[in-house]
Structures are given as C-alpha cells and as structure tokens.
C-alpha cells in the first residue's frame, strides 16, 4: 500500500551532507552577489555590503570565472562580443578584465600577443564606455 506522499517531509540529512567548505561557501556567496547585481537588486557596492564580501574577494571571483573565456576568443569574434555586451555588461566587471590584460601575461607572451591584446583592450574599453553611458542615461 502506498504511503501518503505528504506523510513526511525533508530529505534525510541533506543539510548535513551539503555543508560546504569555507572556500565553496565564499564561491556561492560571490555567485549570488553576481546574480543580484545582474538582476538589478543591488549596485556592486551594495551587493558587497549585503553579502559581506570584500572588493578583493569579489574581483578575484570574477577574474577566475572569466579568465579563460575572455582571452580565448574575444577579438574578432562577434558572437563572443555580443555575449560580453549582454551577459557581462557590468562596467565594474569589464574594468576587471581590462586590468587582467595587463597583469596576466609574462613579458615575452605580452610582446608576442601585443597586437591582439591591444585590440581586446580597445574593444573592452569601448564596451565599458557604452555601458556606462547607457547606465547614466537610464
């Protein structure tokens, strides 16, 4: 005979099983903050205050998340460009990308890639400027 499907509640001791390490907890907090900023709940500064994050913690999260994505194929790739403009269209985030371009390569690699890096920086600065203007207007 079937038990009443409402007879009990809860899913074992899932609360215990899903206790996260402090590193994962921080990652989760950053993800949530990012979503809140993107959805317009908070400005970046407000989100940092609301979720008890330092600017360094949040910037580090954004940088880690975006590093491979941004350097692989931005320049000359219209699809990626559009993604950056829509999904990542937060000036603060784009400014982090620009900083990363200057700090993520050694001298030799920077020399080899200098033309491409230059193009990427110009594009990012353009997007950042466009988004800032749009936000000011809004």
């Amino acid at each position, binding site marked *: *005979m*079937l*038990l009443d*499907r*409402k*007879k*009990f*509640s*809860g*899913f*074992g*001791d*899932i*609360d*215990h*099983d*899903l206790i*996260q390490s402090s590193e994962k907890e921080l990652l*989760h*907090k950053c*993800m*949530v*903050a990012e*979503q*809140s900023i993107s*959805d*317009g*709940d*908070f400005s970046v500064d*407000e989100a940092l*205050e*609301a*979720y*008890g994050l330092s600017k360094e913690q949040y910037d580090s999260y954004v940088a880690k998340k975006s590093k491979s994505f941004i350097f692989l194929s931005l320049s000359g790739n219209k699809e990626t460009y559009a993604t950056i403009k829509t999904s990542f269209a937060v000036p603060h985030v784009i400014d982090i990308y620009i900083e990363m371009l200057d700090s993520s390569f050694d001298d030799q690699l920077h020399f080899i890639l200098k033309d491409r890096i230059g193009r990427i920086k110009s594009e990012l600065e353009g997007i950042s400027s466009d988004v800032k203007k749009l936000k000011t207007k809004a």
Partner: protein
Amino acid sequence: MLHIITNEEIERIKALGFETTGSTVPFVEFLNEYFPGFRIGEYLAALENLLGSLTQVRITKELSFHESPPPMLIIQYYSGDCEDDQTGLAFSQAFTRHGNEIVAELDYLRIPESARKKGLSKKVLNLNLQQYEAMGVAKIKLEAALSNGGLVWAKAFFSATEPEEVKTILIKAENKLTAEQFKFVERVYDNYYNQNPDGKAFPMNKWSQLAGMDQILQGSRWHGELDLNNSDILTKFKNYVA
C-alpha cells in the same frame, strides 16, 4: 542513445522485491511511452544497494503507475517502522508527465539515525540526478521544510513557487532581523515581484546568503522548484551537490 526498457529489466526489478500496482497497461509499455530513457533497473538496484541494508525490518518496495492525465509513476521504499523517527526508513518520489515535460517530485527521504551523517542523502540525490538527465526531466519539485531543507534547498538554487509562502518568510524576517539586515531582504523581494507580479520562481538563493537569513530560512517551509532546462542553474546545482 535513449535507453529502451525491456521485459527482462522489469523482471530484474521484481526480483529485487518491487511490486507494481496501478494501470492495466503493461508496466514496460507504460514506461517506454511516458518515461523513456529511465534506466529504472539500474536506478532501483542502486537504491536497493544504498538503502536496503539500513534496517532489519521488512521493507515495502512499490511502483505505482497511472495513465490518467497526467501520467504518473510513484516510487516508494519504506520499512515497517517508518513512522519511528529514530529507526524508520522511507523514500518517496514521483514522476509526472505534462505534455512533453517530465517533472520529478521529491516527496521525502527518512533514514535511520544510525545511518545519518554518512553522506547517504547526497548519494540518493546524485543517483536521482543521473536519471533526471537520462530522462530529460525538466523540473524537480519539492517542499523545503524546516531545519532540514528551508535553507539548504535555497542555497542549492531552488526557487520558490508560491508567492504567499515567500511573503510569509518576508514578514518573519521583518520581525526578527535588524532594520539594517532587513533592507536588503526587502530589496530582493521588491525587485523580483515588481518585475514579476505573479512570479513563480523567486530566487531563494539570493536570500540564503544575506545576514540573518540562515536562521529565518532554517525555520521556514516553502515549495520549491529547480529548472533543469536552465543550463546555468543545472551547472550550479550539480556543482553544489557534487
């Protein structure tokens, strides 16, 4: 390739002690028609492996299926002493099909105290998740309840489907949090419902990390849903429960 359920597979399920009840159509036909891709033999054998040795009391293993719309399959696995909070074992889950969409409803899991804090709940959840992906389940639904789930499912990216329940939690937060804490809670609430007046997907995860909200959510009850067709949410959920 989509798994085709066979009569041999059904025989193996029966050999594990599962009984089928419900519709007059053959079970194998029912599954292939409404829940194709479900590796039910593999799933139930794994469930038996995880839960079967947790009690010496007789276990009832039931598969109830109904064609009447919406087609539904209920899986239950429970011990004779399931009512006992210390020794009882009980698991209930249902799948329903709405048009082309399959919904999984996680009713409950109760495990004996001696088996708690050993990662079993997470294993059962991951076992389910494997099948959800194989079957193309669109949504997981559950009732996040009290200390066990109110906070944990919020953190696991489930959204709240019932606005009244969200409102109740908001009021509780207003009464218990400081004004400084509550202003952020309210902002998330207002922003969502201003944009989605009849919204059925309030992002509880945004509340879960706000100061003071862990206590509020731990003592709350709300109906939640996870949209598995949203690849971003699915990835986050899998990372969270992995």
